Every structure is written in C-alpha cells, then in structure tokens.
C-alpha cells in the first residue's frame, strides 16, 4: 500500500498554495455579515415604530373625540338637512407634531318624539381618518339633537 502511495500519481500529496483573498470573496463575506446583522437592528427599530404608531392612534382617537364633541354643539345651532361631508385635519400636540387627514360624514338618521311631545333629531357622524397604520381609524357617534 505504501509503495502504491509513493508511485501512483493519484496519491501524490496535494499542493497547498496560500493565495490572498480576492475582492469578490471579501465583498461576499461583507454582504453575509451585513445580512446576519440585519435582524438585530431591524426588529428593535420596528418594535419602537409600532409603539410610536400606537401612541399616535391613542392621541388621534382622543382628538377625534374632541372634534365630535365640538360637532355636537355645532349641530344644535346648524342641524344637517340630510347628509354632509366635512373634511377633517387633526393636528397632534407639539411633542408628536404630526397631522392626519380624514372626513366626517354627518347624516340625519331619524327623528324621535320626546316625553314633552317635542321632536328631537337623530344625527349620526361617521369619522374616517387615515392614521399611522394601513387601516383607517373609524368611529361612529349618534347625537340626539334636542329642540
């Protein structure tokens, strides 16, 4: 067996040549390192962004609530005949410094006679605001407009 190793070209000891890295190899290594580092960077950042957007939604809902309260008072003096669309721009406070757009659709949905025999109107306000998430924020409120 040892003789065979010595004579056969198949068993010739391998030639080891140490050659430097080529640029392509270096670039591939760099790309691999970058790709493997991505999840460590991406998820904390994404998580924070989600948290910020949730806070925006929370503030936005509060601002929409305020707007609806103002609308209720306005409806007492100017009741809507059948349907009206109002464009809405909600600006959040200085710390958040962002504004969102949407619309309010006010519709007269009916009328009711109260105990005193007076007619009160039923108005429904539907709010749709494009928030930080893909799906818009939707709210609906019904107002009894007393005579």
């Amino acid at each position, binding site marked *: 067996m040892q003789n065979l190793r010595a004579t056969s070209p198949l068993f010739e000891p391998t*030639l080891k040549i140490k050659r430097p890295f080529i640029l392509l190899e270096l670039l591939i290594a760099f790309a691999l390192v970058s790709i493997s*580092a991505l999840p460590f960077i991406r998820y904390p950042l994404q998580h924070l962004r989600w948290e910020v957007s949730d806070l925006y939604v929370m503030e936005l809902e509060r601002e929409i609530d305020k707007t609806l*309260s103002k609308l209720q008072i306005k409806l007492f003096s100017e009741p809507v005949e059948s349907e009206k669309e109002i464009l809405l721009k909600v600006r959040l406070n200085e710390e958040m410094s962002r504004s969102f757009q949407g619309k309010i659709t006010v519709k007269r949905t009916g009328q009711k006679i109260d105990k005193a025999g007076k007619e009160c109107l039923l108005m429904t306000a539907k709010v749709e605001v494009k928030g930080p998430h893909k799906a818009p924020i939707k709210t609906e409120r019904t107002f009894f407009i007393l005579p």
Partner: protein
Amino acid sequence: MDGPARRQKRPLSLLELVIGLSLTAILLSSLFTTFRNIAKESAQVQRIHGKSHEKAILQLRLQQIFNSLSKKSGILLVENSLFFFYENPYDLETAFCGLVKGDLQLVGSNLLLHFTGKDGARREQKLFENVSDIRWEFYDIKTKKWSDSLKKKRVPLQVKLHLTLTDKQEQLFIFQLPNGGVK
C-alpha cells in the same frame, strides 16, 4: 511536486487594506446611524408614553363616570372640586357597587378621584400627576354657552376640563353627558 507544501507569505497590499478599511467603515457607520435612530425613537417613546397613557386613562375613566351619572343627583362644583353620584354596575368590592359618591379634586400636584361607597368605605385613584391648576367649563343647552359654573338642576350637555401642568402645558378634555340638557 515531491517537496513539502509550498507556502507563499506576502504582506497585505495597500489596495486590500484600503478596501478592508472602507468596508469596515461603511458597516460601522451604518450600524452607528441605526443605533442612533433607535436611541432617538426610544427617547421619543419614553417621553410621550407616560403622558399619553395618563391622558387616555383620565378620558376613559371620567367618560365612564359621566355616562353613568345618577339622574337624581347629577354633579356639583365646589371650588374647582367636582362632586357627583354615579351608578357603578359592577366592582370587585361590593361596597362600591350601586350608587357611589365620588369627587374629583386637585390635591397637591395630583388630580385625585375619590369614591365613597357603602358603610363609609373609601377609595382613591390618582388620575393625573404634575398638575398645577384645574378649571371646569359646562355647556348649557338652554343658553347655548360655555360657563364656569353649573346651573342648578340642569345637567350640562358637555363638560370641559382644563388642566395646567407644572411645565405650563395646557391639556383639554371634553366629556359628553348622555342626559345633557335633560332636567
């Protein structure tokens, strides 16, 4: 080849060194930018997180109370403190189920909500911190105006709560009363 493995030993060329250094610099700068962004966003979240939650809790809690105000007693304002009776449909403590007396007042720099249940049982809830002043406004449906005082035997349509914080910031909360305008 009958000798031992041939080894080529040569130092790194300038070009290789420059490429290596520039790649490291790119990687480090992108990492630095990303971590700076994370720190920035984190600071923003920290800053607004507490306040937003405090505001949302105050809005929800008081709206819940105003929605279930007792029709007989309503609300009463005495020196910026609001007193009310409300129907609490369920509670872990039986003393606070049913008709509960409550008041909302500024104690020190905290906006506190007190409840008095059956047999004199008391409970306190802190609604907002760092408040320097509070002001109430009530919308009267008859006069169609906002007023600082409550009309006797008349439930307002809406209630506004102005909070002045210790950092001079103003916060406004509006609550709707379902029986507003009804005697």
